């Protein structure tokens, strides 16, 4: 989360609603370790990343949903290495993200 603190602070000062997705667990060959984070604000602006670019698009959709509902939850993206190759993903493995609004 360290690398997105600057963006988070800027958005907070602008009064934007923000959702954070943090990698909390990985299985297999995940490119980013637990603690990697990305944030999405109510305007759909994005900071940080949680994978090698594989799942960020889906995380934006989940994050905007999280901003609407305020729901905190774990979202899992899992691919076998073969499936990852088939859809052009670099990572393989499975990542578990914790999604929540930044209201704390």
């Amino acid at each position: 989360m360290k690398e997105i603190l600057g963006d988070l602070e800027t958005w907070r000062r602008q009064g934007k609603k923000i959702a954070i997705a943090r990698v909390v667990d990985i299985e297999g060959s995940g490119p980013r370790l637990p603690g990697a984070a990305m944030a999405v604000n109510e305007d759909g602006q994005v900071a940080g990343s949680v994978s090698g670019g594989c799942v960020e698009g889906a995380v934006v959709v989940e994050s905007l949903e999280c901003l609407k509902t305020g729901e905190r939850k774990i979202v899992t993206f899992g691919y076998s290495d073969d499936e990852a190759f088939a859809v052009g993903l670099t990572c393989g493995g499975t990542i578990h993200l914790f999604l929540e609004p930044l209201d704390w």
Partner: protein
Amino acid sequence: MSDPSNANGDSLFEILRAEIAAQTPVALATIVEADLDEIQRQQPGAPTTGAKLLLRPDFEPLGTLGNADLDRVVQRDGLGELAAGTSGIRHYGPNGEARQEELGVFIESFAPPPQMLIFGAVDFTAALSRVAKVLGYVVTVCDARPVFATTQRFPHADHVVVDWPHRLLEKVGDDLGPRDAICVLTHDPKFDVPAVIGALKTEAGYIGAMGSRRTTQDRNRRLSEEGVNEADLATVMAPIGLDLGARTPEETAISICAEIIAKRSGRAAPSLAQTSGDIHAR
């Protein structure tokens, strides 16, 4: 969930951000899974998803996970994760029971950056300090010769110290841990023998010393004469670096940093194309 948590009414996020900016060690524990049954959920102060506890060594924790016993156990475990610089999920019961699984608590450590001490103000040092900065190290360059140990020559280093290596180690050695590295590039026995002896007294995770095979043999002989035992000698990576065929100071810097990473992860560092199996440890 907004929970002003200190005297100034700053939010937990605000405190966390300030501590990280000040490079103070801090960990954030968050309940990310709460698989409680109806009765457990009805209990007063039942842990809820998203509840947070901010942990700092030598301070009372801020916030709460909902339950004092749970807070106490997570504080103990969280400070352990912070000391190791690791982050991950731990499972507990609703009152912090270690053998139960109802709660998943994500502990994220924000440890200060690792340190690299480089002894010897040579061309290799300039290149190594640059590459070490890319990897996030706080870099200290140390050489006893004031003409060479200057910030002009080592603009990438965080600190440039004019002193004997072993004297610097007497001052800062106790602060070094498994994530830190000491690189002895002097290849002058008068400096590097006491530097390596001083380095071996620290808990640094990596100690390497530069020099040819002959220099290395000669240094090992001198170190043995000074009473360094075989086991300690074997932990010193010398000649320093992976066998990449590096020639320039920059290439050598890459080979040293690659060796530091390989040593930390316990890998032999061949090309992935020539190995099979998992790329990352499971």
